[in-house]
């Protein structure tokens, strides 16, 4: 071959000699000449020529390939120790990688079940003053955005939640999607029976209509076509069934959609822009990019801010891909884990490459014989690569079994908020198989090519003449050391990553949320709307219910609230002192919103700092009252006593009756925020969440609680029964997932690195037996030899650690989103990781070093 790139030489080496000489070489020369004339690149065209040569020379290639495969299989059987070590190492790497990919594929890569789902976006609101971002949009803003935007072909509003169906036998729970017709248009939902929602269904005063979900239609209505036109009562609303959604339709994707009800959206923005809230989903117009849509939303936001400063000052709307909203924080964590597991696979490849390199030295005589019989370097490389491929395929098959075993464990660790139906029964599908096959090929190249490139036929004669003194050359030893440097560098990256997440997790566990999560039972309740339409009925129910619950054995306190803490809720309300209202045309600052009973503070043990919490005095017909958190007091009443002061609310001026401690309401990583509490006693709801503090295990009291509530209202619906501890655990699930897997990967990396260092040092000691024997004969002591060997190993490991730490900073920055209270450059974590890895490296060097001290100098010199 003339002057060509290393890549082209590599391609040529993979071809049988005849095909290379007759087909590939002249074709490549023509390509280079063409490139010289036109200036075009040759990379891709070289590959095309290579593939064409393979296609044209099938008989020669397949004969050569089959011969090499048979030879490789014989070698694997002949060396069971090597085979087992290599296959287990690779299979674990490939299997873990395939398992993580299967989850990534299901959560991040598989298209959402809507046509052209990548054009669907969710609208988001950002308050520039507080930085708080939330998905729900004030109804006035929604109407204006819908009218003014130019980027979306349809923009629909929706909400989702549970409901109870009455009048169809026993009451039963349904999961409802409340939507406008534009949402269903955006999702391209086509009913299988009847019609979809229309714009008229969302007009004020329109008769309520619903579209049944397919499963509910089949299960509760027997799939009867006559269901269209019938009435159905959900909660307190009776609606007419107008259609049936197609099988499998669900929105949001992680929730069941039993019914789709129309919601009322005014045609013109109401004067009170925050009189209602909705989520917004839109479909980008053909040809409109996300950037253009964002610019459009930004322009509309600025217009609304100028027109309605009192409501929109600091408000900014933008959009995110619907998938990003659905997968939330899991996206970053999963991609991080995929990167981490890829590093483990890479370390496994490096280890196997080391094993192969060591074996290559032992096979130099065999190679020499092949060279003597006419095999060229390229032929040897092709044989070597085929052997690697056979090894990788066996490891890939075992890896798939490993993946099948790991996938259910991984799925169980994905947060329940990412409850995608695709995750249930997730297994090894075609995509995962294709990924594994690709990975297997890649590993072949990585671990097979390194030792193959080390083949030197010039030394073959020496190996043939004097087989007893076959040793690895300095270049081969340097290559082995380089591999150890690589795997130590990769291991330190994983180790520091796992250490940082562990440190962060420990800090999260130590965070004081401002309330106690232990021994609190939490359950959602829904009262039959027909019996509790009137406020006095609801008031009477709650009075009897709390009284009854507090009398139960094992119950300390009970309360109710609307917002479940630690679930990411960011509902806010404007804070406006009645005596010092914000100037006209300005928007009052936002504070957190919660509606709760007095018992809620007791059940969660939120400390009372001043005044009182809500109690029997706070009846619906009494003076509106609120309770504020400490931060509100400190920020808005510095040096004053806020008790007795008044703030503006929707129900007129409300009196501040108490100050309670701050809590981390949205999540443990959240800073304690200013919160304002409104009394549920003054506006009891038909649906709310009960919080019950028990003396023992809260689940042990569940039956008594159920019986007590059913004793008061037999038709009460109780759902989402959990404990506050479980909610807190779930809120940390992403961090826990990252910690568990990163920890496992780091341990695997540490183990593999130790094996790698041990292997290389053992091999090195064997190769240097003569030198060590000579040194001992010349008077070197055992400790001198121990130091000599250990110094080499530890130096190589230290070099790897230094390189890994430098490269690892970029990786640590990628971790930032998962870290809490821990810097990516946390010196304690870095120091510990370095110490552990150096310790393991020293241990891995010690055993071969000790063996080196036991070399018999006389015997060695005589033999050599």
């Amino acid at each position, binding site marked *: 071959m*003339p002057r060509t790139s290393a890549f082209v030489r590599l391609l040529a080496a993979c071809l049988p000699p005849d095909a290379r000489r007759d*087909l*590939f070489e002249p074709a490549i*020369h*023509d390509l280079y*000449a*063409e490139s*010289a004339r036109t200036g075009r690149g040759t990379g891709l065209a070289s590959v095309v020529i290579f593939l*064409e040569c393979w296609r044209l020379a099938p008989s020669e290639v397949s004969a050569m390939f089959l011969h090499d495969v048979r030879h490789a299989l014989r070698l694997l059987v002949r060396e069971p120790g090597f085979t087992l070590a290599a296959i287990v190492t690779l299979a674990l790497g490939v299997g873990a990688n395939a398992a993580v990919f299967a989850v990534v594929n299901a959560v991040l890569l598989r298209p959402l079940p809507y046509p052209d789902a990548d054009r669907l976006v969710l609208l988001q609101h950002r308050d520039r003053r507080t930085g708080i971002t939330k998905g729900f949009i004030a109804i006035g803003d929604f109407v204006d955005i819908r009218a003014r935007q130019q980027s979306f072909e349809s923009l629909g509003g929706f909400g989702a939640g549970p409901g109870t169906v009455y009048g169809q036998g026993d009451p039963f729970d349904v999961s409802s999607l409340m939507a406008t017709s534009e949402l269903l248009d955006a999702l391209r939902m086509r009913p299988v029976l009847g019609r979809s929602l229309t714009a008229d269904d969302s007009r004020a005063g329109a008769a309520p209509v619903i579209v049944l979900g397919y499963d509910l239609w089949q299960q509760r209505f027997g799939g009867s076509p006559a269901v269209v036109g019938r009435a159905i009562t959900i909660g307190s609303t009776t609606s007419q069934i107008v259609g049936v959604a197609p099988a499998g339709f669900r929105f949001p994707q992680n929730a069941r959609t039993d019914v789709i009800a129309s919601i009322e959206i005014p045609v013109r923005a109401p004067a009170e822009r925050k009189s209602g809230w909705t989520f917004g989903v839109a479909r980008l117009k053909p040809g409109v990019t996300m950037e253009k849509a964002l610019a459009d939303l930004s322009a509309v936001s600025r217009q609304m801010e100028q027109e309605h400063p009192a409501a929109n000052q600091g408000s900014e709307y933008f959009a995110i891909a619907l998938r990003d909203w659905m997968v939330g924080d899991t996206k970053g964590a999963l991609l991080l884990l995929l990167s981490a597991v890829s590093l483990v696979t890479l370390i496994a490849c490096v280890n196997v490459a080391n094993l192969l390199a060591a074996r290559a030295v032992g096979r130099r005589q065999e190679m020499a014989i092949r060279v003597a019989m006419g095999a060229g370097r390229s032929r040897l490389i092709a044989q070597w690569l085929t052997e690697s491929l056979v090894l990788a395929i066996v490891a890939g098959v075992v890896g798939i079994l490993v993946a099948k075993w790991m996938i259910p464990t991984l799925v169980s660790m994905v947060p329940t908020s990412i409850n995608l139906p695709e995750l249930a029964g997730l297994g090894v599908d075609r995509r995962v198989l294709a990924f594994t096959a690709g990975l297997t090929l890649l590993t072949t190249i990585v671990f097979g090519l390194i030792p193959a490139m080390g083949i030197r036929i010039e030394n073959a004669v020496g190996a043939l003449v004097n087989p007893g003194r076959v040793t690895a050359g300095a270049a081969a030893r340097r290559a082995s050391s380089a591999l150890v440097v690589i795997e130590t560098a990769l291991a330190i990256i994983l180790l520091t990553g796992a250490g940082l997440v562990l440190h962060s997790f420990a800090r999260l566990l130590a965070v004081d949320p401002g309330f106690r999560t232990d021994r609190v039972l939490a359950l959602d309740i829904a009262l039959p709307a027909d019996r509790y339409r009137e406020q006095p009925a609801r008031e009477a129910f709650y009075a009897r219910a709390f009284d009854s619950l507090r009398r139960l054995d094992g119950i300390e306190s009970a309360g109710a609230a609307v917002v479940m803490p630690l679930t990411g809720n960011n509902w806010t309300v404007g804070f406006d002192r009645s005596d010092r209202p914000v100037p006209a045309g300005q928007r009052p600052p936002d504070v957190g919103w919660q509606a709760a009973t007095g018992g809620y503070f007791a059940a969660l043990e939120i400390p009372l700092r001043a005044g009182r919490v809500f109690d029997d005095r706070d009846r619906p017909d009494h003076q509106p009252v609120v309770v504020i958190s400490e931060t509100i007091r400190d920020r808005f009443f510095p040096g004053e006593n806020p008790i007795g002061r008044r703030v503006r609310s929707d129900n007129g001026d409300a009196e501040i009756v108490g100050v309670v401690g701050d809590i981390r309401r949205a999540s443990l990583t959240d800073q304690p925020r200013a919160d304002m509490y409104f009394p549920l006693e003054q506006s009891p709801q038909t649906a709310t969440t009960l919080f019950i503090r028990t003396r023992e295990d809260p689940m042990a009291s569940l039956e008594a609680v159920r019986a007590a509530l059913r004793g008061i209202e037999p038709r009460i619906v109780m759902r989402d029964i959990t404990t506050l501890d479980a909610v807190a655990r779930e809120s940390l699930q992403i961090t826990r997932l990252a910690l568990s897997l990163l920890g496992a990967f780091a341990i695997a990396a540490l183990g593999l690195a130790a094996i790698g260092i041990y292997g290389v040092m053992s091999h090195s000691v064997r190769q240097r037996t003569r030198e060590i024997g000579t040194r001992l004969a010349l008077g070197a002591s055992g400790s001198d030899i121990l130091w000599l060997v250990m110094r080499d190993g530890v130096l190589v490991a230290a070099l790897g650690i230094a390189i890994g730490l430098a490269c690892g900073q970029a990786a640590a920055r990628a971790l930032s989103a998962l870290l809490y209270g821990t810097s990516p450059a946390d010196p304690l974590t870095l120091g510990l990781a370095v110490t552990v890895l150096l310790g393991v490296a020293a241990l891995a060097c010690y055993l071969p070093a000790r063996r080196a001290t036991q070399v018999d100098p006389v015997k060695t010199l005589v033999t050599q």
Partner: protein
Amino acid sequence: MPTKRIPRLTHLQFLVLGLLRDGEQPGRVIREAIAAHGVKRSAPAFYQLMARLERDRLVDGWYEQVTVGDQAVTERRYRLRAAGARLWAEARDFYTALIDRAVERLSDA
């Protein structure tokens, strides 16, 4: 006297050998010339054809360095051997005779 034996050359081989009757040529030029006759071949497929002609000792092939712009590149050149010229002539005679006979029959009819 025209031969009655069916030619050993394929149409494509006949075309290539015919192109080489005018003198030695680089493979690239031959490939472009047969492409002008509507026979498109990838570079490896074309050189497979040429390798078979070389193996049958109908052409000689060798590498030669030429300068393109300011770059030295290598190209494979071919020249017709006597055996190739003889086979090409036989094939040409066969086809000529075939055409003559066909013309005669058409005239008789």
